């Protein structure tokens, strides 16, 4: 059983505004936000699709979609159209409603014609907002063996963190028995202490069951949302199962980078994951834009020190010190500068003798020599957009 040979269609919901990631989302939707100064957030789910053998993917875009669509064209256009393989961006077309998508379920309902055109037996619906790796073949096998109408990928997390997610309970056969979106008092997993199962926004549907319930939901006054309406509405009449992500191959890591703090921490965690090779392995590559830039140069009169960091191609590091940081492509760091605990995205230019700590530089930021960031909190507040102690310098920012 391999997804490459199954009659399956995949949708990635990629219309997330990411308001809490502002100003990184000032010019782009959340899935198009850079991650680890190398990737875009959506690269993770797309990589899992390709690595799992999925070859027919619609990416549903909505607001500020240009950056994402450009990234898909530049980085994810390698599939063979002659073999009916594709990763295609689908903008909100207002075919049925003259409004934007009203919810995640509405996004699929408004694109039913894409399902009608292909008549897949199963549909995978994924979020373009999350950082993880997953072999969807494991999910598919479970879905088929359990004869479910819907299989939801779930994972256990601490109760204190569960209220911002959909929380569910399951019986001994992993059939979902209750599902509440963002509950005040999340239900615990029996016998597992302080942990709750949450919905990861990864759905595998039997197509007929999905269309039936989406068509019904579309006629009703609901939020048209998978978590709020569709899953709870299916529990009685349909077989809805939970797939325990934690027991799967890459089950140790999944992050929803909803806020700047989450985003920053996930980047730093990713640094640790790279060090241990748990999320990116030679047989599970994470794809992204492949530019023909020269290797990174490191030199100067004094030595370059790099500790627990990554540096992408085409950069130039001159007698500087980099620690616990992610450096993107075509970044220039001048002599004597120190960069610590920071994310520096592509085409940044950092002058000589700068100190940069606890900062996020979006694309193309330029700071002159002797600039200090993350040294004097009061001075930072006057000059930069601050969030939770992190200075964020937006795209093309020049000091």
């Amino acid at each position: 059983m391999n997804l490459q040979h199954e009659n399956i269609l995949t949708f990635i919901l990629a219309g997330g505004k990411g308001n809490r990631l502002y100003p990184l989302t000032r010019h782009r939707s959340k899935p198009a936000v850079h991650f680890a100064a190398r990737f875009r957030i959506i690269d993770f789910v797309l990589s899992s699709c390709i690595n799992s053998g999925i070859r027919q993917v619609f990416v549903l875009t909505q607001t500020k979609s240009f950056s994402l669509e450009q990234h898909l064209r530049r980085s994810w256009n390698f599939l063979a159209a002659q073999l009916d393989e594709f990763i295609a961006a689908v903008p909100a077309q207002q075919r049925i409603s003259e409004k934007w998508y009203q919810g995640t379920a509405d996004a699929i309902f408004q694109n039913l014609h894409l399902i009608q055109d292909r008549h897949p037996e199963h549909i995978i619906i994924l979020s373009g907002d999350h950082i993880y790796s997953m072999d969807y073949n494991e999910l598919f096998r479970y879905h088929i063996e359990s004869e479910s109408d819907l299989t939801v990928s779930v994972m256990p997390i601490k109760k204190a963190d569960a209220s911002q997610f959909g929380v569910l309970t399951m019986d001994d056969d992993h059939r979902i028995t209750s599902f509440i979106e963002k509950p005040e008092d999340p239900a615990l997993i029996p016998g597992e202490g302080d942990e709750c199962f949450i919905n990861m926004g990864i759905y595998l549907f039997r197509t007929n069951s999905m269309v039936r319930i989406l068509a019904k939901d579309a006629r009703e006054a609901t939020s048209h949302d998978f978590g709020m309406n569709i899953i709870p509405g299916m529990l009685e009449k349909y077989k809805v199962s939970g797939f325990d992500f934690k027991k799967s191959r890459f089950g140790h890591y999944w992050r929803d980078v909803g806020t700047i703090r989450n985003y920053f921490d996930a980047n730093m965690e990713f640094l640790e994951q790279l060090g241990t090779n748990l999320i990116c392995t030679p047989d599970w590559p994470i794809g992204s834009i492949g530019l023909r830039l020269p290797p990174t140069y490191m030199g100067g009169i004094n030595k370059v020190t790099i500790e627990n960091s990554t540096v992408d191609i085409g950069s130039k590091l001159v007698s500087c010190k980099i620690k616990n940081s992610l450096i993107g492509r075509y970044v220039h760091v001048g002599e004597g500068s120190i960069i610590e605990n920071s994310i520096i995205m592509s085409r940044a230019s950092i002058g000589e003798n700068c100190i940069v700590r606890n900062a996020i530089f979006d694309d193309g930021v330029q700071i002159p020599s002797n600039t200090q960031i993350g040294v004097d909190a009061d001075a930072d507040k006057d000059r930069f957009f601050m969030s939770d102690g992190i200075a964020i310098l937006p795209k093309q920012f020049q000091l």
Partner: protein
Amino acid sequence: MSEKKMILVIDDDKNIRELLSLEFEDLGYSVRTAGSGFDGIQILKDKAVDLVILDIKMPGMDGIEALEKIMSIHKELPVVIHSAYSHYKENYLTWSAMAYVVKSGNLEELKNTVQNLLNKS
């Protein structure tokens, strides 16, 4: 006396429109008719309608496109697809309709379906 409920019949076959008008008026409903999807949508925008009986195979805007437009104007409005063809049942784009009745000489199934839906609404 309560106002009669209004049924909109959208069908390009004039004989069907006339037949359904007579039959449903006999049952106590008001009936308006349209010979195309475009005309039907225009009526729906201008007039209060309680239920739509919708043909699928029509020139210009067919019933499937008309159903999408109806959903955009009044998503909770009951629509009964009334087609000579049963294979459109397999088309996911028809599943938003509340019912699907294949045309036949006997109108009982259509009448029962319409009455049930209007009694619920």
